[in-house]
């Protein structure tokens, strides 16, 4: 008899929905059905049963082909690589559990690695802005229960965080928001008419690259100062009208995404969006939140935070102190400058997301990749370790975009013989210890 596993956490995006129902075969090996998930989340569970899973580590041969090897052999190769390299980039972490990260950090501290997560090419600019000006925020349940003004700025949850709108931000009825969607006014600020804009009550089209100016104009209008006729393509009357409406909110929230973090201005865009939010707190209650992408990129920032005091790009290569400096200890810059001697990728696919120059630099170095599936990065790696899918085949802690931690669930067994991230990292750590002890003798 197939059985249903309830309250399953979706390991796809930072929304971290925790109400999925997964139907599992009697022998705990196959996922038969997924309920409540969005299309992307469902796919993440469904492709567990697709044929062709890699079950043994693969090592690249001289002719460029891959040969299956034992975990022991691949672990030994990896540990040797880590011990020999004076500076190893240990990038990824956003799709694994916090428990696994902790073991990875222990290895990094021993071998002098640089631990970085995908905030480095994502919300890193938001983190820089928060380091500069702080951030007034809230949990997603607060938005559901209280928010009557919601602004989506440079983000498109209809595609990137599909259930965000129904669970937290637009449609749900909460304690003080009994009318649900009807009781909320939704704004979408974007340079394109996105699918999120379609759901909004009001779409404000900002000229591409003028987000900073428009946010600045909002602050100016909030203070009652004069505006030019148009800012970023938006007429001043409109700006004034929106700001007056935001001021009359009981509880307002701004959600923002890559449209702010990766357009001209970057961290300065976030900086001024935060400052607008702070200003609005002089009139009413207002919060702002980054739409974090990978389901546990927030968790990587948290674990790095409590162990070293920085949210990403943590350089442990000096072995006696942790350093963090954007542009200096960030992955893309390190690769572009050819500053690392080896690459250790886990639970993220830089091959698909990093600039091409960075990946060309990476491809010339000893590289290992830990990922359940074959992806762009595994194909430029010397070793590919297949592992269990976290959140599907093994549990572990993850942090939602509002920093709420949720323990993900195991719903099926991993393929026979395939290690989990935690098991694999523990064994690499042990082998590193052995090699370092030998070296010390």
């Amino acid at each position, binding site marked *: 008899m197939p059985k249903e596993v309830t309250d399953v956490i979706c390991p796809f995006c930072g929304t971290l929905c925790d109400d999925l129902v997964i139907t599992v075969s009697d022998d705990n090996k196959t996922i038969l059905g997924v309920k409540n998930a969005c299309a992307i989340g469902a796919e993440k569970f469904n492709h567990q049963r697709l044929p062709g899973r890699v079950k043994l580590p693969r090592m690249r041969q001289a002719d460029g082909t891959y040969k299956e090897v034992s975990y022991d052999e691949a672990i030994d190769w990896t540990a040797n690589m880590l011990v020999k390299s004076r500076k190893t980039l240990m990038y990824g972490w956003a799709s694994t559990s916090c428990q696994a990260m902790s073991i990875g950090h222990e290895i990094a501290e021993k071998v002098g690695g640089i631990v970085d997560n995908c905030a480095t090419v994502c919300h890193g600019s938001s983190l820089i802005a928060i380091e500069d000006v702080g951030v*007034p925020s809230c949990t997603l349940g607060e938005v559901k229960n*209280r928010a009557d003004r919601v602004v989506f700025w440079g983000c498109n949850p209809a595609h990137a965080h599909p259930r965000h709108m129904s669970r937290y931000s637009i449609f749900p009825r909460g304690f003080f928001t009994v009318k649900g969607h009807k009781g909320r006014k939704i704004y979408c600020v974007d340079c394109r008419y996105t699918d999120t804009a379609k759901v909004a009550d009001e779409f404000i089209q900002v000229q591409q690259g003028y987000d900073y100016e428009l946010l600045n104009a909002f602050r100016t209008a909030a203070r009652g100062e004069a505006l030019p006729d148009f800012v970023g393509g938006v007429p001043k009357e409109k700006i004034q009208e929106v700001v007056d409406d935001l001021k009359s909110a009981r509880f307002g929230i701004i959600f923002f995404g890559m449209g702010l973090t990766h357009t001209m201005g970057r961290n300065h865009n976030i900086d001024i969006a935060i400052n607008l939010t702070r200003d609005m707190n002089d009139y009413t209650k207002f919060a702002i939140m980054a739409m974090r992408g990978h389901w546990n990129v927030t968790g990587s920032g948290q674990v790095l935070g*409590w162990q070293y005091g920085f949210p990403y790009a943590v350089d442990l290569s000096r072995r006696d102190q942790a350093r963090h400096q954007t542009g200096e200890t960030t992955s893309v810059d390190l690769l572009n400058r050819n500053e690392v001697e080896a690459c250790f990728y886990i639970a993220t696919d830089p091959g698909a997301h990093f600039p091409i120059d960075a990946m060309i630099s990476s491809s010339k170095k000893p590289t290992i990749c830990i990922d359940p599936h074959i992806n762009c990065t595994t194909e430029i790696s010397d070793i590919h370790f297949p592992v269990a899918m976290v959140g599907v085949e093994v549990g572990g802690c993850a942090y939602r975009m509002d920093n709420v931690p949720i323990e993900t669930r195991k719903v099926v067994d991993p393929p026979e013989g395939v290690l989990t991230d935690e098991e694999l990292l523990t064994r690499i750590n042990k082998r590193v210890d052995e090699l370092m002890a030998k070296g010390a003798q």
Partner: protein
Amino acid sequence: MSEFVIRNGHVFDPTQGIKGDKKDIAVKDGKIVEKVGSSARVIDAKDKTVMAGAMEIHAHVAGPKVNAGRWYRPEDKHFDSHKTTGITRIEGGKSIPTVFKTGYEYARMGFTFAMEAAMPPLYARHVHEEIHDTPIIDEAALPVLGNNWFILEYLKNHEVENTAAYISWVLRQTKGYGIKCVNPGGTEAWAWGLNCLTIHDPVPYFEITPAEIIKGLIEANEYLGLPHSMHLHQNDLGNPGNYKTTIDSLKLAEGIKATNNFGREQVLHSTHLQFHSYGGTNWGDFESKAKEVMDYVNKQKNLTIDTGNVTLDETTTMTADGPFEHHLHGLNHLKWFNVDVELETAAGIVPFIYDPANAVFCSQWAVGLEIPLYAKDPMRCFITTDHPNAGPFTRYPRVYSWLMSKKVRDALLNGFKKADKVIGATTLAEIDREITLYELAAMTRAGPAKALGLAKDYGGLRTGMNADIAIYNINPDKFPSTGPEIEKAFAQVAYLFKDGKICVEDGKVVDMGHKKTFWVDAKVNENKQVMHDIREKFLRYYSVNENNYPVPESYAPHQHIISVDATKA
């Protein structure tokens, strides 16, 4: 080797009334025993001071806001980031140290236990992840409940039994230790940008007053018979003239008796009292009211307090008192961090520089010292810095030096740029008292242990107690006379025993010990009403499912569960 004998030390133990007598302490298998065999390792404690491991009753050392403080203040690492040789990890941060540094530094100062003072229940997993990663010291955490919707709704109708049933449930879900109440009502009001500044300001929508919340939580605590009392951060923190609200709040405990099996006598612990003992009407006529507040505390035997000593450092303030942090940000304009937590609480963070050139900050420093110096019963007054709010916990040795030497504190007081103003606004200059080592042992060991309901096994050196022992390089007959000497002696223990194992030797961490997480499992009768309310709130208002709310066992691999049976209450 699991047997030790600590020879010839000057022992200070208020649980047995030992005031510096030379005594041998025997340790076997993690406990203090009468005697050990001849093969026991001998620790020479001649000319040294021997006390139980110190216990931190109120600090923010683990959890979401502490960690936000860490990562949003990279500059805090510029003051300190290093690694010592040996088994320790990299240590970073000054006012909000990383988990590794937190564990090591407490141990180096002779501490074996720390209470995380504010755990938002929704974020309990985070708190426990950090506690798990903090080495050596035992820890526990207090869930914040003073603005929790369940509590507000039950107490509005004075339903103490339902309140207690909910608390029992939430302690089990969060692996929590007791009841923390921060700015009752005010933090819920903050969700709309408002606050409750007196104990009679009604909470928006919920139509309950802070006074009703405080009193109701005290009653629920005694109904359950929890090891610790209700732990209160009062309304109107940090404002001139707030001492009246402080005394009004303390009065709510009058006539209530402690009901528990742990030897605890207080029904209300009022935390960081320094921030609540101010007179005046503005920052210009700001003055100390420590005497007035302490006169009241000294009379009321069912109260305990901790100090919240300002250490005049650059630090990071963080509290579940969300509106206060917003207010503070308005004063110093440094970066403001805020999180409102659905149905439960909020938290704010603002960096803060207690500049010794500023008369108000120096007066706060003086108020923090006046409080313990006016305390008649050291078993009811504990030293804290409300880490990191009034200063980092690593400054305890300096705080001790001010309390134990009038010479040291007067030198600082008289050297302030605005010394006249500070002396005029406070009474510190008139106080001659110096805290003795015996009183210090009460204020940092026996007292907190008793107030936390842990006096059976912790806070003293009686036979049968847990072998958590700190040995300091202090000869009581030749007590160090300068500030730096006193500081050094308390900052680096000669030895720290934790559960009968040497974890620190000569100020150097040599063993990670056997760290435990303490939590309280309070049993109550089945309560269908409360279980129904919980189900409904999760279905309709929470953003996580009820089944994903509890903290899994694996987060606290070494649990010390204290069971309480309130089924016959």
